[in-house]
């Protein structure tokens, strides 16, 4: 029997490409400047896994799970994970910096424009429409997150208590998490041979 385990198993995975540091930097500059609003993790997967073939799904998806579990912006976490996976610690730093520097510059420029020139100018009337759409985008994220999180009546109760603690008790988010996490974790704790039922 052949004992050599293939380095890249499967016929298609043979085409896996390992980029240079410069290519890694270039891709994250591109991602930073071409990503808007939500849906960015799917966009990164398409670029890194499907188009560039730098990672397989088996390498990418655990990283996605990790950054979704840990606190912080998912994009930043993915940059760190992908950079580290491909090029080690320096790769992480390069990916993260390249992701943020160009948008940082454009965002600051827009901020100055808003505060120095904008607030009196009537071009600001555009913002009424833009903020309305931004609000619609946020609302769509409530639906998407809700769809993934509601597995029973108790999840709806968790959502509503969390909302109320922020909205009516005016607690800060870290405090709310400290209160809610034990409760939610207790409910979702691994149970032997049981199917969850809603009492």
């Amino acid at each position, binding site marked *: 029997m052949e004992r050599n385990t293939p380095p890249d198993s499967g016929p298609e995975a043979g085409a896996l490409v390992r980029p240079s540091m410069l290519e890694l930097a270039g891709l994250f500059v591109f991602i930073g400047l071409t990503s808007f609003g939500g849906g960015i993790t799917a966009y990164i997967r398409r670029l890194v896994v499907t188009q560039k073939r730098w990672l397989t799904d088996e390498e990418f998806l655990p990283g996605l799970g990790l950054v979704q579990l840990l606190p912080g912006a998912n994009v930043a976490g993915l940059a760190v994970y992908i950079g580290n996976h491909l090029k080690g610690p320096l790769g992480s730093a390069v990916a993260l910096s390249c992701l943020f520097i160009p948008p940082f510059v454009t965002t600051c420029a827009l901020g100055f424009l808003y505060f120095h020139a904008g607030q009196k100018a009537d071009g600001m009337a555009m913002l009424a429409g833009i903020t309305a759409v931004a609000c619609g985008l946020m*609302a769509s994220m409530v639906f998407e997150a809700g769809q*993934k999180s509601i597995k029973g009546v108790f999840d709806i109760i968790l959502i509503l208590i969390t909302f109320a603690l922020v909205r009516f008790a005016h607690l800060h988010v870290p405090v709310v998490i400290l209160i809610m996490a034990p409760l939610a974790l207790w409910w979702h704790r691994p149970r032997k041979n049981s199917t969850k039922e809603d009492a």
Partner: protein
Amino acid sequence: MNRVLLQLAGLFSALSLSAFGGGKVVLPSMHQAACGEYHWMSDQQFVDLFSISMAAPGPSMMVVTLVGLKACLPYGTAAAILGALVATLAMFVPSSVLVYYAGNWWDHWKESPWRHAVMDAIMPISTGLILAATWIIAKTSIHSVPTAIMGLIALFLMLFTKINPVLMMAVAGAISWGFLR
């Protein structure tokens, strides 16, 4: 000035490590600190900055950069850029360091049933926090029938089509510039 920088660093590094489910979940705290506690800006300015950051290229939580910029703007342009830098680093570096180190032991937990338990537990909490964030944005941005209609249309298009949100913002911006002036 130094005091404001310290406040920015403290606020955003705490929020960085509490943003379970992505940056948006800490928006209510950001709003409360920036408008209520430190009086860096008005509600309207906060929502405007949030919308600008959504329309501009870059990761969606670049509103952090703009909050830092505005907090230090009274001290001059250079200070504003420094404030923006401090806020951005404080928001994105702590969580990234955590991801870097956690990546190493993550695979050991692959088989643990607790991994799913933690995911299931975090999801409803982040949904509640995003709902609270939406409430804050809605309170300020939806102030008339036309803005309510535009918000609802955007919600509908986001849920049922793949239209790019920036295109929606461009169209809505043009409409409100043309009709709501």
